[in-house]
């Protein structure tokens, strides 16, 4: 007879050996282990605990942090509807309701036969081809009523995911306006050849001359980051590519990884040569799991070409390889220190900084963390020189920026522009009409009204990680802000008090306004909450969590005013609602069981 623990050892041991029983790979091990049952079995934790010499509490603590790791049984088909505002605008809620009613399941629950579980998830990065969903972590785009009907049928017939129609999984690149990067016709190895020809010192100088700044949004000088890391002392140096593209409305890295992976990996290799790293990581968000095999193939091809591995291009002192780590549904891991924690197999909680990753990063060693687009851009600089790159864009924002355009426009997709392009220009190019607002750089960015459309995309005006969501006059900007606030509540890591509790309070206030119980008093409360979160939160998530509301209150006040049933104070506590439980228990719903006031308003 096979004991329960042996059952688990059978599939866990091969995973453990691949990861050499390294506890730093805990998250990767959990992601793979979960594929067996669709969740992490309690007995499996016993085995992992003994094999990795980690306490159960630590394993459960890590597993419990990530949205895509489950400690309870899930349906055979785990269906997650992407719930960005762009998905909402394309009708994802109706489609989810349709799927749920066809398959007799409630959102957030598992069907009684265990066949499927359905829920929503944060933006999956398919805003230009939504509404989107994930089934067992694999992305499906362009949901329509007919596609949902077909999916219901496939699930009912228990057709394995691998046998579903391929067009469901045909994720498009939608490159609408290429510029120097997207149009580069990059030849793998060319940037490395240029580096080896010019030397690391000269190439680093070129990166500095180019004035390239990080494309993840913060805009730190790439040359300085690489130089600090190169000069930092440590046993090992590491290169990390941040492909945890979680900001709702952003999807450029998905396209870069799909069509330009060679360039991204080569940029990482340039960095490795300059800072003296032997190992690199690509941290791929769990939502892009479907890209994993493709990326592994590109890595393998580069090894065959001697562009990765030992003695790269014949240089005995040039050894570097890249490992792909998957995320598991945690937006906060896009913050570089949280990402490093996650790479180390921990809960993705941002670290106290300083020290910064350039001196104390992965395993406390000097580490460069850069965005996907930054690494790709560094190849262009190695090839064409710093001055060439610096001449593109504006004085303080050199080069180009790739925008992920979605929402109310004719041609959603990727638009690459030299920095300095106006919002109006982008709107014209993407075919947006009657535009009411543009949300730039996602929920944590800014909401722009028409009188600001002459402003520029640039670090000195509107900095952005790439998201560009368009809303026409038919949209309710209150609902946009409410969607974003719910997002922050869901994605707060929970480490610090102000963000953990504040994002929930804000979300409750927006729901209260939505239910018609708000008053001007709530605006003042939101303002106070914003000051508190700005000044006391641990990281950028808390700092920016109130932005969507403050921006829309300032610019789209009528959307809020129309929800105020009362212009003065209204208590949040509704006596009649409070009686509903008593009514339910007594089976009463007559006049006497209601408070007079709310009865009259019926």
């Amino acid at each position, binding site marked *: 007879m096979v004991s329960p623990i042996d059952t688990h050892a059978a599939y866990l041991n091969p995973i453990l050996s691949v990861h050499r029983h390294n506890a730093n790979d805990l998250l990767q091990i959990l992601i793979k282990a979960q594929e067996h049952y669709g969740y992490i079995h*309690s007995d499996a*934790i*016993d085995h992992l605990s003994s094999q990795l010499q980690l*306490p*159960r*509490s*630590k394993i*459960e*603590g890590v*597993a*419990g*942090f*990530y*949205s895509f790791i489950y400690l309870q049984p899930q349906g055979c088909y785990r269906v997650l509807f992407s719930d960005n505002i762009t998905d909402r605008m394309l009708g994802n809620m109706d489609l989810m309701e349709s799927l749920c009613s066809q398959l007799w399941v409630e959102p957030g629950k598992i069907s009684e036969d265990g066949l499927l579980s359905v829920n929503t998830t944060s933006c999956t990065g398919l805003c230009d081809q939504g509404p989107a969903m994930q089934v067992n972590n694999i992305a499906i785009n362009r949901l329509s009523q007919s596609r949902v009907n077909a999916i219901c049928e496939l699930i009912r017939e228990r057709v394995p995911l691998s046998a579903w129609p391929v067009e469901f999984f045909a994720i498009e690149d939608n490159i609408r306006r290429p510029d120097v990067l997207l149009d580069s016709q990059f030849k793998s190895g060319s940037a490395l050849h240029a580096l080896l020809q010019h030397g690391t010192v000269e190439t680093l100088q070129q990166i500095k001359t180019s004035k390239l700044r990080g494309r993840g949004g913060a805009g730190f000088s790439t040359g300085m980051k690489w130089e600090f890391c190169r000069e930092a002392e440590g046993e090992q140096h590491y290169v990390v590519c941040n492909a945890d593209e979680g900001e709702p409305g952003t999807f450029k890295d998905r396209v870069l990884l799909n069509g330009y992976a060679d360039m991204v990996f080569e940029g990482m290799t340039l960095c490795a040569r300059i800072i003296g790293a032997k190992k690199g990581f690509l941290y791929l968000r769990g939502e892009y799991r479907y890209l994993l095999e493709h990326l592994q193939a590109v890595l393998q091809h580069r090894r065959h070409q001697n562009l990765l591995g030992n003695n790269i291009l014949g240089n005995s002192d040039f050894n570097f390889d890249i490992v792909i780590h998957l995320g598991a549904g*945690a937006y906060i891991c896009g913050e570089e220190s949280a990402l490093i924690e996650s790479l180390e197999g921990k*809960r993705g909680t941002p670290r*106290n900084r300083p020290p910064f990753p350039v001196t104390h990063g992965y395993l406390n060693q000097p580490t460069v963390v850069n965005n996907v687009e930054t690494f790709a851009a560094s190849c262009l600089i190695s090839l064409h020189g710093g001055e060439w790159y610096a001449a593109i864009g504006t004085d303080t924002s050199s080069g180009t920026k790739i925008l992920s355009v979605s929402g109310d426009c004719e041609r959603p997709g990727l638009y690459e522009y030299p920095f300095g392009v106006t919002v109006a220009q982008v709107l014209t190019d993407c075919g947006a009409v009657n535009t009411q607002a543009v949300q730039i750089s996602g929920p944590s960015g800014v909401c722009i009204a028409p009188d600001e459309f002459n402003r520029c995309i640039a670090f000195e005006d509107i900095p952005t990680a790439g998201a560009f969501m368009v809303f026409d006059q038919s949209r309710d900007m209150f609902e946009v802000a409410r969607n974003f606030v719910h997002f922050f*509540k*869901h*994605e*707060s*890591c*929970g*480490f*610090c*008090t*102000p963000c*953990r*509790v*504040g*994002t*929930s*309070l804000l979300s*409750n206030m927006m729901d209260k306004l939505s239910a018609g119980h708000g008053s001007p008093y709530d605006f003042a409360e939101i303002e*106070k909450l914003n*000051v*508190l979160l700005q*000044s*006391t*939160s*641990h990281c950028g998530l808390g700092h920016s969590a109130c932005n969507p509301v403050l921006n829309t209150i300032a610019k789209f006040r009528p959307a809020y005013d129309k929800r105020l049933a009362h212009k003065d104070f209204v208590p*949040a*506590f509704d006596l009649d609602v409070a009686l509903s439980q008593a009514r339910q228990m007594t089976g009463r719903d007559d006049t006497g069981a209601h408070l007079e006031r709310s009865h009259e308003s019926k």
Partner: protein
Amino acid sequence: MSQSNTFTLDGKTIPYNEGQTIIQAAMAAGVYIPHLCFNPEFKPHGSCKLCTVKANGRQTASCTQHPAPGMVVESDTIEINDERRALLQMLFVEGNHFCPSCEKSGNCQLQATAYEMKMMSPHFDQFFPDRMLDASHPEYLLDFNRCILCSLCVRASRDVDGKNVFALSGRGIKSHLIVNAKSGRLADTDFSGDDKAAHVCPVGVILKKRVGFTIPIGQRSFDEQPISATPHPQGACPVGPRSNTATLPPHPTVKGG
């Protein structure tokens, strides 16, 4: 003491040693900065944010921020205390804190700090979360209703006891304390009343059974003097089951025992 290793805290000159953070130096100088997740015996964590100060005009957690020579630090100001009060109110509404019926009342740092910051109401709407009680252990009770996620028990169990009895799981507002047992019950862990972790909870989560009211309410640590006048309420004295001394204020949980 040279000028190079002092900073000013609300105008008072505070000396510091290399490696000390602002709150550590302030405590050594006998100046109180409100805090909950900080305990001088453990590596600073920086999560509760109660100890936020303005250092050279920038707000930062004083438990993790190192001072610089001549740094100007503001702590006891109307603006910062208003923020601290709001953070306390957040902690109160997030959990289920019913001081009048709590056996930790008078020995509770959350309650005492709220008094210190003159918190008169919870202000925000209560969340009333549904949280469990774990009475499985013969000697100790866990009342998760009061957890403020300071992780002191996690750090104590991991770093001092070498046991990892406690850990945090979940994320965001669903973050919660778990114990190291398949059953999820404290009785099935190797927890012991002699553990450091049994004596570091600043609130009323980890409670020794049958001694809750040995010291009547009204005669407890913070009934006698406010938390600001109680030096190092959670740690300066060697903490342990039998660590009472005449000169140092007793540990809140110890006093009950």
